[in-house]
């Protein structure tokens, strides 16, 4: 690596259940590979680092494989409350949103907060209002909720655990005691 060389890194979350099916692992790797390639193509077209991080996170948000955007973990009420942030190293400008339930790409709303509002963080109904003003794409809440998420929520409720490893096999015979050597109930991956 040297000055003037580009690089991209991407993640889909830390903390993976050791028994995650091979098929799920394969799909996750496919998505990450596709996102990296998307970023490489954009950098080769001289897009900025800021545009490329937004582009890649948008792609990850619309795919239900990971816990963000579509495929988000569910609250105790069975709804989604999504959050995101973005930061530009040039001038350390930043934008963040929380408590979103209809915005298709939370990271792009965070970018709009950074570029088009006098603030750096908007949340819940204020953020949803800003999204409408800015014409950000919104979806019905059901767009974000998947069968797998509902199943995870039920498992978490059975365990009476507020924190839960999101990425566990959906079969019921999953050992629920330990994750990373810690009791599942205190483990809090996101």
């Amino acid at each position, binding site marked *: 690596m040297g000055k003037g*060389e580009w690089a991209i*890194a991407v993640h889909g979350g830390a903390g993976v259940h050791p028994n995650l099916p091979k098929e799920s692992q394969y799909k996750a790797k496919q998505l990450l590979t596709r996102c990296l390639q998307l970023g490489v193509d954009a950098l080769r077209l001289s897009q900025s680092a800021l545009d490329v*991080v937004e582009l890649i996170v948008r792609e990850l948000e619309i795919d239900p494989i990971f816990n963000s955007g579509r495929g988000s973990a569910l609250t105790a009420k069975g709804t989604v409350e999504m959050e995101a942030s973005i930061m530009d190293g040039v001038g350390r400008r930043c934008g963040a949103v929380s408590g979103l339930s209809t915005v298709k790409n939370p990271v792009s709303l965070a970018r709009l907060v950074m570029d088009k509002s006098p603030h750096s963080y908007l949340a819940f109904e204020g953020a949803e209002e800003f999204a409408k003003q800015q014409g950000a794409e919104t979806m019905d809440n059901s767009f974000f909720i998947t069968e797998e998420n509902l199943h995870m929520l039920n498992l978490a409720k059975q365990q009476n655990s507020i924190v839960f490893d999101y990425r566990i096999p959906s079969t019921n015979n999953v050992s629920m005691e330990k994750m990373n050597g810690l009791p599942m109930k205190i483990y809090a991956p996101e």
Partner: protein
Amino acid sequence: TVGCVVVDSQGRCAAATSTGGLTNKMSGRIGDSPLIGAGTYACNMCGVSCTGEGEAIIRSTLARDVAAIMEYKGYKLQEAVDFVLNKRLDEGKAGLIAVSNHGEVAIGFNTVGMFRGWVTENGIMEVKIWD
């Protein structure tokens, strides 16, 4: 949680993180991902995106600490990532990705596995889940 960090050919760094949070969380709960300095940070030296135990990442201002360790201790990127994961998290479990304005990539995690991938201009592309 998902995240991305990029340094472009002009040495500009950026970071972004997005999440649904925790399954069965209380309504109104805010995690680390939207908090600048905790789950996401970028400056002229580096870009960082974190994931894992939100409350631990917030308390340790994990993302900003990578930049601070580089700035004040003169650590290189991977050294700074290893330091914050080992010294700042207490018993917390987390993972993070980072790039520097010199085109370096650094990744660290103390969980069982992390969905992650990286690519550099010299053509190396890797995607991993386990250690």
